[in-house]
């Protein structure tokens, strides 16, 4: 059985057509996307939950379709009518699409949304449920290494595997485009686990990497109010009274004036370094690093961010205020249902991970077997990393051509 079950029209257009015959009540759709029906009635508040629209036409001629807003229901992905549609009636199920699809006569009738786009590229992934079912078929049973296993155990190891893979093997696909507010802090994304990179975006869309502050400043975890003897003071409930961070306050107020050479010059591409310009000439007077010279980790003008673990926020240097930034980050792959998918290039590595984890966590397993599975897991994970690194020889060649350039010192 082939793995692709959608037609080209279903995949690209998100549409599937039927013809009424005066008898048939239910029309089964075969999209990869499950139909979501909040309500058939546009006046109902749940109508907005629908991920598709239904159109009918008596002729099937383009432009003759109108939205069907009379009663129908969805049972097991089949559109079910209370009364059989007339013989010859053209019925089209259109999943919501960014361009609204081909069938709506006007903006109100068009199926705007992104259910179709969400499914694009889905063939490069398998769902976690499918991976677990495949594992149970292929690796668990009589005559196999795992004679029997509880599905909850497999589920646990599969999810743990997906989490681990998300941290260092799978592609980092999460990014958020945000504007730095006056407070210079942004709440971490809901599914944030760690950052990959933060950049600010200039007027022409080029990204400039902004770096963590490292030793430049810190967001203190506790900011107790102290009495004159330096002892933290408590409120009526016996807990320490917390104030705002003076360190952060000073950082937000100070760094623009004291540390940056040209605060106003950041609107376009700006490659001025700290204390030194691109010609290696000394500039400025009160810059950080003046006494001991250039410190490479601070030799950039794009800006800084640091993590405020206490508040769960990212804090930015003040010249990034109102700037557009893009935060690339990793999650653990389990935050949302749509996240729980594994690139097919890492599918085998996940099976090897589960197999090793199950055998290694069991009593009385021969150590040579555990070690063999550990090596297999390692090798398959390394393969997955290489595959997902997306290294192409012609792209490497293109990069390596730059090596022939004369590098000035």
């Amino acid at each position: 059985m082939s793995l692709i079950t959608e037609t080209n029209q279903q995949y690209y257009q998100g549409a599937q057509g039927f013809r009424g015959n005066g008898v048939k009540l239910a029309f089964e759709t075969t999209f990869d996307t499950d139909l979501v029906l909040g309500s058939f009635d546009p006046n109902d508040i749940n109508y907005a939950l629908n991920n598709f629209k239904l159109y009918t036409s008596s002729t099937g001629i383009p432009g003759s379709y109108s939205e069907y807003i009379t009663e129908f229901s969805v049972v097991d992905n089949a559109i079910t009518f209370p009364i059989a549609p007339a013989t010859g009636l053209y019925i089209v199920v259109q999943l919501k699409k960014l361009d609204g699809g081909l069938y709506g006569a006007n903006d109100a009738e068009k199926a705007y949304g992104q259910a179709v786009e969400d499914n694009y590229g889905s063939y490069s992934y398998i769902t976690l449920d499918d991976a677990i079912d495949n594992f149970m078929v292929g690796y668990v049973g009589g005559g196999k290494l795992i004679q029997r296993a509880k599905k909850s155990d497999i589920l646990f190891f599969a999810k743990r595997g997906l989490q681990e893979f998300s941290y260092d093997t799978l592609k980092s696909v999460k990014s958020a485009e945000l504007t730095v507010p006056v407070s210079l802090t942004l709440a971490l994304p809901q599914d944030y686990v760690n950052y990959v990179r933060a950049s600010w975006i200039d007027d022409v869309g080029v990204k400039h990497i902004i770096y963590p502050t490292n030793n430049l400043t810190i967001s203190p975890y506790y900011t107790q109010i102290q009495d004159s003897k330096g002892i933290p003071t408590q409120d009526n409930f016996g807990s320490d009274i917390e104030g705002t961070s003076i360190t952060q306050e000073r950082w937000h107020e100070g760094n623009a004036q004291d540390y940056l050479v040209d605060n106003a010059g950041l609107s376009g591409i700006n490659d001025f370094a700290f204390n030194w310009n691109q010609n290696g000439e000394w500039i400025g007077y009160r810059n950080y690093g003046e006494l001991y010279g250039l410190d490479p980790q601070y030799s950039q003008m794009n800006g800084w961010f640091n993590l405020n673990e206490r508040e769960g926020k990212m804090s930015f240097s003040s010249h990034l205020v109102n700037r557009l930034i893009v935060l690339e980050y990793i999650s653990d792959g389990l935050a949302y249902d749509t996240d729980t998918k594994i690139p097919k290039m890492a599918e085998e590595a996940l099976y090897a991970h589960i197999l090793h984890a199950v055998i290694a966590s069991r009593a009385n397993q021969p150590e040579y077997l555990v070690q063999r599975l550990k090596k297999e897991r390692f090798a398959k994970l390394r393969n997955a990393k290489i595959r997902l690194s997306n290294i192409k020889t012609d792209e490497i060649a293109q990069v390596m051509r730059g090596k022939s350039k004369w590098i000035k010192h």
Partner: protein
Amino acid sequence: MAVSVDKVYKTVLFILNKEQRGYVTPAEFNSVAEQVQFQIFESYFPDGNQQYRKDQTNSQNDTEFFDMFKDISYKLHPFEEEVPFTYSAVTDGFSQTTPVVDVLYKIGEVISNYTDVNPIINSTTQLVSKAEFNKISRSKLTAPDNKNPLFFTTNTTGNLLLKVTPTPNTITVNALVTPTPPNWGFTIGGLGQYVYNANASTDFELDVSEQSLLILEILKYFGIVINDPTIIQAASQEAQQMEINEKS
């Protein structure tokens, strides 16, 4: 295919007569026959388990008719049924639909059907103990959902109760039911003799391959023993050898 109760009874009578061991009334026969049928039925489980363990040493064969594990599991087919269960809001669990037609022996695979979601989800449901259920459902990674439901067994007024989480709309339970007791039904003939009545009789549900074993086991209950110790020894050795051949 079932074993004819009439055939077994008449063979037993024939051997008893040949050995001059007296006569067995239908009531006596029916009682012993029920016991023997259940005894053979129960022997399938340790035997099947023993055969399944061969898989661990990769010494099981996969031929069409000589796979012993498959042969034993085939003998259970007459007792394998989809048993109807019904949800009760009072007990918040599923119990066997009344009136109970078959007496449950073992619960097999349980499928939970969630019909009020789209698409309809039919999930294999994992049987766990109550203690395991508490542990598994506390972990966010393994907490039951409608794709990975859990159930444990308890009882309500003495009847089996399946507690499935999350509660499905319906469940499909594959189970083994206990064998129906065989019955040699009869009418009284003109000479006062017992005349076989097929309409009032119930055949053995065991597979037809068990006919010889059934007769031998029933005869044991009626005291057919061979007094010559050498014959007993030879016979028991032969029986042991056969068993070894079958199970090795």
